[in-house]
């Protein structure tokens, strides 16, 4: 969906919008469209502990220019605050104020990233918990204050230290254009699993890309977000098997022929869907993206069984069944990674979408509850919850609602299908296996659902 307002305020109406105080969204830097004037700017690493220095070293090794103190007049591509050693809320002051002082130096589409310890009330002192929980409020609020396409996100260390491979992977994701539409979110690293990925590999494509040598199954791949996911996984080096309903076969064939993949016409709600998928892969399943989903919106008072049941069957029951079957028959590969599509409707609820929101909240629950099983094979399962993404589905919204929905996010615009695809590609990469059972929102910090 084209956002005319976005083009106008970056073109002829720029001055008008400024004078009137209208929202001024900017075109986001995405993978492949990030200018050198952005990537050649330094990263400011703040924090006084050993962790901060380790992180600065990691960035240096990966070719970033690093500053440990803000220098006047110099623009920054990112500010990283390492606060993993904070023990009391009172200690936060110097570092957060330094972040604040540096904010004006942040370039367009810049990044603020906080790295801190995940809250764990059962094992923390009240004061520690107040500190760690407090920092999440800090990061979310900074995200709300961001302007000009900049984002703020956090990496939470849950029983691991900064050297965990997934901390690096999360860092590369958040620093790159691949996270353009992710803001106000946290990536929790809960294990030292996963492969160590350098930034160059993370940003490479094809046979050198982060998914090279892996096979990915994507359901609902014929159109929209599913087609974007298939293309993205292929771009990052994966061999992709696209799955969609037999009726969508011709569109599916075009997508898979274009990316040199394979198509599988299949109703995922059929009892033998898991076997058919395993058969098509002809090897244990390595990456599985549950993207297929439908909407049948109706107010609950007018909901009929057909509308309710079909949404539940496609959006949640099918993937529950497929995961269970593949796990039971030993058809998941060692290190297998599953990424499911949830939705911000599943977090905040949505009028007219009781069936859809139930199914998508269900995905979040399924993901969290399956984490341990996937960890036992050295893999992981995660979900991505898109917010307002410009697709056929959102295009059907009334114009005014659509315009308002777009501006509600901190980035003041809707996301693109590729933004969702990037998050999925990242969570499917071997570097991200230390992130497990989580739901990552790709919503531009849309206020819906906080």
């Amino acid at each position: 969906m084209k956002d005319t307002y976005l083009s106008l305020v970056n073109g002829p109406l720029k001055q008008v919008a400024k004078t009137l105080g209208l929202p001024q969204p900017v075109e986001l830097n995405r993978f492949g469209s990030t200018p050198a004037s952005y990537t050649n700017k330094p990263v400011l690493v703040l924090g006084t502990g050993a962790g901060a220095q380790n992180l600065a070293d990691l960035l240096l090794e990966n070719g970033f220019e690093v500053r440990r103190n803000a220098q006047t007049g110099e623009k920054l591509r990112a500010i990283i605050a390492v606060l993993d050693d904070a023990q009391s809320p009172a200690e936060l002051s110097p570092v957060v104020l330094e972040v604040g002082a540096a904010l004006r130096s942040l370039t367009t589409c810049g990044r603020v990233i906080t790295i801190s310890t995940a809250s764990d009330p059962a094992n923390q002192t009240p004061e520690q918990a107040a500190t760690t929980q407090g920092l999440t409020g800090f990061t979310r609020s900074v995200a709300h204050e961001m302007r000009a396409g900049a984002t703020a996100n956090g990496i939470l260390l849950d029983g691991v230290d900064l050297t965990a491979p997934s901390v690096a992977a999360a860092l590369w994701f958040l620093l790159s254009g691949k996270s353009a539409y992710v803001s106000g979110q946290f990536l929790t690293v809960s294990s030292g699993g996963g492969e160590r990925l350098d930034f160059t590999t993370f940003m490479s494509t094809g046979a050198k890309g982060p998914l090279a040598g892996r096979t990915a199954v994507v359901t609902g791949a014929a159109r929209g977000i599913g087609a974007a996911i298939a293309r993205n996984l292929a771009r990052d080096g994966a061999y992709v098997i696209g799955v969609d309903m037999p009726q969508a076969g011709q569109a599916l064939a075009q997508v898979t022929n274009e990316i040199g993949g394979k198509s599988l016409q299949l109703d995922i709600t059929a009892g033998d869907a898991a076997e058919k998928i395993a058969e098509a892969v002809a090897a244990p399943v390595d990456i599985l993206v549950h993207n297929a989903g439908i909407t049948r919106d109706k107010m609950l008072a007018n909901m009929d069984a057909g509308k309710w049941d079909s949404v539940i069957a496609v959006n949640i029951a099918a993937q529950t069944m497929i995961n269970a079957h593949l796990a039971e028959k030993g058809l998941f590969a060692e290190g297998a990674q599953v990424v499911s599509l949830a939705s911000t409707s599943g977090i905040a609820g949505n009028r007219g979408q009781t069936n859809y929101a139930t199914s998508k909240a269900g995905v979040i629950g399924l993901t969290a509850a399956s984490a341990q099983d996937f960890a036992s094979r050295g893999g992981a399962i995660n979900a991505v919850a898109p917010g307002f993404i410009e697709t056929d589905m959102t295009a059907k919204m009334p114009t005014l609602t659509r315009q308002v929905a777009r501006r509600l996010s901190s980035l003041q615009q809707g996301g693109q299908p590729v933004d969702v695809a990037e998050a999925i590609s990242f969570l499917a990469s071997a570097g991200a296996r230390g992130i497990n059972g989580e739901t990552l929102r790709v919503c531009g910090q849309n206020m819906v659902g906080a």
Partner: protein
Amino acid sequence: MSAPTQRAVILGGNRIPFARSNKQYAKATNLDMLTSAIDGLVARFGLAGENIGEVAGGAVLKHSKDFNLTREAVLGSALAPTTPAFDLGQACATGLEAVVSLNNKINAGQIESGIASGVDSASDAPIVINDSMREILLELTRAKTMVQKAKIASQIRPAYLAPQAPSTGEPRTGLSMGEHQAKTTAEWAITRRAQDELAVASHRNLAAAWNDGFFDDLTTPYLGVSRDTNMRADSTMESLAKLNPVFGKKLPTEATMTAGNSTPLTDGASSVLLGSEDWADEHGFTPLARLVDAEAAAVDFVDGAEGLLMAPAYAVPRLLARNGLTFDDFDVFEIHEAFASTVLSHLAAWESEEFCTEKAGLDKALGPIDRDKLNPLGSSLAAGHPFAATGGRIIASTAKHLKTTGKKRSLVSICAAGGQGLTAIVEAV
């Protein structure tokens, strides 16, 4: 036959759903449809950009500009443009002949992989100017002077301008295939009821297969069509009984052949992927079945000594004899339904002591076929019959059927214009 020469296996297939002519595919050319059928196969097997040993195909109703139809389809497809292709033709047996031909090339070690294909459009059929006009035009191109040209041009008569309508009639007899079959139907005394029953079974079986998702990995939708449009799942004896006969109305016997128990003109395309076992293995493909042998036959129908579509009745006994098999050794019989009465005439011939001993050179009748084993997935009466595409439809379907049911052996039989027939044995691997 010794084992080492049996390298070829059937790996799968793809067709576009068949559509009654002059409907959804009315404006689609043979090239359009064939390319789409191949592209769907390429997508299903992940062959984009790959070189295939050879692609074989053809069409019965073919424009002269389509002299290289299959190669043109390859160039328009997602296959590597360096994949060679050739056209062939054996009327309605074209599709099966393409499979047999590539199967033999793989067995001979000449190629490692092949795509056998076929397509036909009765909607976009070539229209030809009539012979008188054509001769005058050819004369004109040979004329040198204006006077000569004027003289030749003056021979043109208004009647010559009428195009010659495309026809599925036999060139030697001028009779349509239906009229030919009507004579055979009468000779074998095939009843209207038996024909209608076969038609109902064909629709019922095809619809059941579609509903089971059997064709999910054998078809790819085209131009918004996602199921065979001729199929009538609700077809009953009562509904078929209401139809008036269309063929054999001038014969002294009762006319029994209706639009319901004859195959309508249809548009469509099919393709079958074949490969050596090694090639399949390298690509991670699971073989479905193997084509172990084939036999063609032809009959002299010109002066009425034999029925036009009776050649398979002669081919099958020879095929069975060479392979040391009887009907009992088969789990499936895939007999192409040009007309319901064609299938029934073949069955009657094989049950006839007289036919088998006097005409087919056997010492006794081949015997009956268990009707439950006949066309278990429906056949052309329900699916329709885009001539050259039918062989690919049958081979891919029966190979998958053997694989999914664990059955062992299938007999495939296709009758063709010109008094020909092609038959084959497909076995599970």
